[in-house]
């Protein structure tokens, strides 16, 4: 499975990792909804670290589409809210 960290690049992860990502996605959505900025940032940072350590970076000369796209590593709660309200990454 190919996972992209937006603004950073792609990683190749195992399929079990896909299920874990799905759980984390739901958890992050809950944190955004409860406006828990500190919780969201901490959890998201963990997730990014996990993808970086579990995944194999896709080589620069490989052109492949992603199965999952994660927000940029420094995404804020405000930006994340804007993302799943369908307004895009840049609030406004």
């Amino acid at each position, binding site marked *: 499975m190919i996972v992209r960290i937006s603004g950073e690049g792609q990683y190749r992860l195992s399929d079990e990792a896909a299920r874990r990502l799905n759980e984390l996605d739901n958890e992050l959505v809950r944190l955004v909804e409860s406006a828990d900025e500190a919780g969201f940032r901490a959890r998201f940072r963990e997730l990014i670290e996990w993808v970086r350590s579990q995944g194999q970076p896709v080589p620069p000369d490989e052109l492949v*589409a992603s199965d999952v796209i994660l927000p940029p590593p420094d995404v804020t709660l405000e930006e994340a809210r804007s993302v799943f309200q369908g307004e895009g990454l840049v609030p406004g």
Partner: protein
Amino acid sequence: MSLFGQMMTIIRAKISALLSGAENPEETLEYAYQRQLELLQKVRMNMVNVVASKRRLEAQLASLENQLSRLDDQARQALQAGREDLARLALERKVFAQQQIAALEAQVQDLTEQQNRLIEAEQRLRQKVEAFRTRKEIIKAQYSAAEAQARINEAITGLSEELADVGLAIERAEEKTARLKARAEAIDELVAAGALPDYLTGRDVIDRELGQAQLQAGVEAELARLKTELQSGQRPALKEGE
């Protein structure tokens, strides 16, 4: 609702916008390649903006830091003159300036990181563009027209995603730079309006009041000295004839 799902939707919308101008496969190829070059250009321009914003923030930071010791001196002098109200005013300004410094420092740090990410994004995109160009020629030489097309489409999808993602990173960097610029302007306005001491003219209301306070203190001291002299019956030696 899904955060990652929405990210995918955002990127896909950008990909289809990127490729919507092309009618046939050969055009798609050419079009995608042109977009890559444009994006590389944009990445470079944005980096110039980020550098300019960073310099400005650093200059503001230096000005604010200069003010800190001056405000401290003012507060000390005010206390010596028995003007706690003025000392309080100077310290309020000092604390405000310290808050501004902390916020600016965090932003300079953010901007530095963003700049590094843009440099990396530019390099990544350049490599992908190069890979795409090579791949395209190999595919065209090795496969039948129909199969070549399928393989080229795959490569285009991968490359377009990279392009869309870099585009998103640039938009985000631009938005952040604009926000920083607005903040820098707001600080300039505060300084101009005197909400912060005006470090350009060097004198402000605290200095003037302190000057008054010192004048008063000087007058009081002189008076006290005269009174003491009169009470003790001593007179300083006067010149003859007076």
